[in-house]
């Protein structure tokens, strides 16, 4: 291998100025390890990377009392400076394009580039959300075709496409439940949530005006069916279940749970964050689910983009379908596509609970997801789930002898393998393993989640890792586990080879510095 800085040397390791060592560079950069100042420190007021057409620019007379006194205090960069600034910054990020990104429950899979180029076709990227329907029939057809796939893949009756992300989809599903209860004239105010649930579930339930009650887990990491049944009653609006659950296990009792909840007059919300494990293998609709959001940025490969944008369509059962929010796209019996908005809601969607977003939702994500779905087809999507589950089980079984796997005895896992830090040497924890993985050239797994397992490490390799790539990751994880058991204290100060060492989060939270004030360019607000 012909790597630059193959030994991973950095100034913090010493050697600089020592006998035979290397003196520090005068730039502060080391080969391809490049530092980059803030754009505000690079730019100059008055500089600009955009040229404009000539025009007479005097503002209209009436506008004078509204004019700002000076341009915003924003330094500009010319194009070469800007391209270099952002390119240098990009190199301080880890990304799927660089290697495995096994964040449990996040489904960091490869993002196909065909999706990107299709989303950029002017017919999709350069259309306005309020154009007359006759001029956007192709866009509405994308929404309708994707909706049709999502409905078929999940075995549900309908789908609300507009939610902007998973948590927004959850909220949409719970509001459908609220609207359905209102229509029945019932005041049910309790939502049951398993204690292993992602924090978003109780946050969303509270946001939708419900009281949250927790359901315990069994020692095997599943929802305790009997404990759940004991809580059902006339005040229970529904239950929020994640399936496969946050321990990476399928809930075999989901149908029985759903039957019990339905018999008690409630609805079943399924958190679809982990749909990647079961797409094409089982349809949630067959298990009694009433609503489930689908993170297009997980199962259907739209890019995470450093934290969004996501997209969170919600599939709905017959019981909840009438309440889906506006706008709503339907295909009539004659094959024509209709956009239902406020002005025509009376035509077939009169019970919509309202509107969650301006315009139509995440169209740019719909084109990417549809492109991905068409690429894989029904057979490929099934293979996605199978390979994702196989890869996770492979990680589980090749590491369980060196890292405790609390539910390994429960049988196979689904798309993610759960480990804990029990049994490591004193003082060495999950965090140290995670930071050690950074030094090994990998992104860490999800750590300290789910909360029901102490020192949890949740590894989701996804189906887009090759066996050879997994073997390299496994070798690193095993080596770290062994170093941790042997009490290797150097793990405490890992990472040693990243663009930054461990960052002081306490300082950041005690005295928050959220904007740059280095030029004393204080904001105008008093």
């Amino acid at each position: 291998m012909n790597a630059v800085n193959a030994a991973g040397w950095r100034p913090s390791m010493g050697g600089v100025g020592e006998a035979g060592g290397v003196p520090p560079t005068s730039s502060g950069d080391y080969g391809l390890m490049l530092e980059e100042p803030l754009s505000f420190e690079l730019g100059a007021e008055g500089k600009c990377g955009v040229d404009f057409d000539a025009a007479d620019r005097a503002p209209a007379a009436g506008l004078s009392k509204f004019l700002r006194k000076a341009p915003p205090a924003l330094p500009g960069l010319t194009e070469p400076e800007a391209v270099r600034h952002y390119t240098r910054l990009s190199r301080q990020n880890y990304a799927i394009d660089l290697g495995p990104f096994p964040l449990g429950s996040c489904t960091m899979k490869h993002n196909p580039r065909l999706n990107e180029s299709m989303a950029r076709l002017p017919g999709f990227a350069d259309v306005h959300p309020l154009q007359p329907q006759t001029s956007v029939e192709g866009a509405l057809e994308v929404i309708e075709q994707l909706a049709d796939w999502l409905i078929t893949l999940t075995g549900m009756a309908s789908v609300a496409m507009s939610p902007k992300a998973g948590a927004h989809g959850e909220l949409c599903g719970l509001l459908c439940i609220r609207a359905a209860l209102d229509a029945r004239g019932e005041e049910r105010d309790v939502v049951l949530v398993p204690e292993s649930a992602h924090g978003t579930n109780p946050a969303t339930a509270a946001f939708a005006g419900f009281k949250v009650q927790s359901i315990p887990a069994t020692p095997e990491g599943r929802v305790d069916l009997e404990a759940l049944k004991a809580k059902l009653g006339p005040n229970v609006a529904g239950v929020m279940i994640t399936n496969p659950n946050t321990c990476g296990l399928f809930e075999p009792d989901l149908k029985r749970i759903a039957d019990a909840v339905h018999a008690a007059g409630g609805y079943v919300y399924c958190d679809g964050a982990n749909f990647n494990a079961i797409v094409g293998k089982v349809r949630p609709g067959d298990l009694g689910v009433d609503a489930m959001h689908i993170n297009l940025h997980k199962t259907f490969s739209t890019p995470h983009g450093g934290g969004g944008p996501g997209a969170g369509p919600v599939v709905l059962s017959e019981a909840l379908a009438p309440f889906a929010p506006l706008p709503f796209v339907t295909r009539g019996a004659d094959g024509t596509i209709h956009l239902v908005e406020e002005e025509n809601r009376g035509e077939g969607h009169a019970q919509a609970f309202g509107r969650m977003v301006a315009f139509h939702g995440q169209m740019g994500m719909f084109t990417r997801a549809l492109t991905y779905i068409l690429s894989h087809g029904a057979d490929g999507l099934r293979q996605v789930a199978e390979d994702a589950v196989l890869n996770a089980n492979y990680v589980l079984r090749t590491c369980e002898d060196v890292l405790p796997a609390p539910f390994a005895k429960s049988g196979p896992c689904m798309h993610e393998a759960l480990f804990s830090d029990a049994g490591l040497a004193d003082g060495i924890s999950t965090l140290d393993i995670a930071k050690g993985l950074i030094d090994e050239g990998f992104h860490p797994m999800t750590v300290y989640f789910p909360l029901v397992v102490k020192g949890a490490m949740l590894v989701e390799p996804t189906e887009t890792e090759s066996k050879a790539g997994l073997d390299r990751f496994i070798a690193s994880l095993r080596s770290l586990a062994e170093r941790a058991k042997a009490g290797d204290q150097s793990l405490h100060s890992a990472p040693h080879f990243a663009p930054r060492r461990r960052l002081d989060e306490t300082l950041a939270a005690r005295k928050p510095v959220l904007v740059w004030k280095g030029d004393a360019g204080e904001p105008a607000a008093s």
Partner: protein
Amino acid sequence: MRYLPLTPADRTEMLARVGADSVDDLFVDVPEEARLSGPIEGLPMHASEMAVERHMTALAAKNLSAGSAPFFLGAGAYRHHVPASVDHLIQRGEFLTAYTPYQPEIAQGTLQVLFEFQTQVARLFGTDIANASMYDGSTACWEAILMAARVTRKGKAVLSGGLHPHYGEVVRTMARFTRDEIVSLGTELAAEPDDAAVIGAIDDATSCVVVQYPDVLGRIPDLAAIAEAAHARGALLVAVVTEPVALGLIEAPGALGADIVVGEGQSLGVGLQFGGPYLGLFGCREKFVRQMPGRLCGETVDAEGKRGFVLTLSTREQHIRREKATSNICTNSGLCALAFSIHLTLLGGEGLAQLAALNHARARAAFERLTRIPGVELLNSVYFNEATLILPRDAREVVQELAGRKVLGGVSLGRLFPVADGLGKGLLVAVTETTTDEDIETFATELESLLVGVPA
């Protein structure tokens, strides 16, 4: 399958290693009666890149794209020219395919961009601080109302009649479930926004008053007067900016006394995209920081004392506070924030001012020409790059007919305000630097021929 690296031999070897006879053994927890035995029937099988490209291109071709016709739509989504370098940079895999920066040592690129973005938004809005973005302008608007309720411990929000009706619908939908009280003022076809009505609606129970600037009809409210009235009653002013380019020309809402400023950042860097993904902007006073929704990036140092950035104050967020979180939002709109930030870095403050002046100049040229059509009047006394025309007949039909002639001639108020009376003849027309003289002339000619029967 081009996206699946495992070979049949790999699968066999791996199954043996995990002790399973077949992959179905790994799905034993799925009840057998629910397990599908093969690919779902009736759906197409996998397809080549070329075949998918054909399918998607055919769908795209059914749309009339903004760049292929005279185009005058706005109403919360604006067509601006985005420098080529923006899209090139956001497609770098290190930005495109990274996750939320939970491991800051290997996410300084994303984090530093967010810190720069927060600074840019705060300076653009004239607020002390800003967050790392939200879903879009409408959801940011609702989050601002919730935050105002936390800050003031009061639960009644007043929405001005100039607020985008979709934003108002989002707020009323959510408030119905959270049981917050919302007072929605009516929208009238008047040359200036009814600031007096807004001020008159504020009482001691009011948590905040929500005012769009410029408003949905393109008019400009007097934020300073409204801020003063709100503060006198212990209420906050939430300013909503759906066209951030306007702030290159008109005063920043924070400088006029707005306590929270939210907006839609789509205009810079993001593009139209049929409505999403867009970019929610959120700025406010520093003293409200712990009541703020959304992610925040903060400056700190690493173990060697080097400057670095982390996500901070996360105890406000859903994954820690669970049912006590300030918001249930997990994601921001990271890649759109990056695009916005790059575009604004290329412009700088001077460039933004020039861009704004150019938009205004193009709009003046357009409205001068359009109001020469008999029967067409300009409603606004002032405007930035968007204003309302009053037509002699229902604007909804006119827009449809114009589309039939391949002219995208604005947004009818009848579509935006389906239940309001008296707005039907209103046509909202936006003009940006992308609008050419030829576009204006074609639009004017076609509109005139529709309205007065002059053959085109």
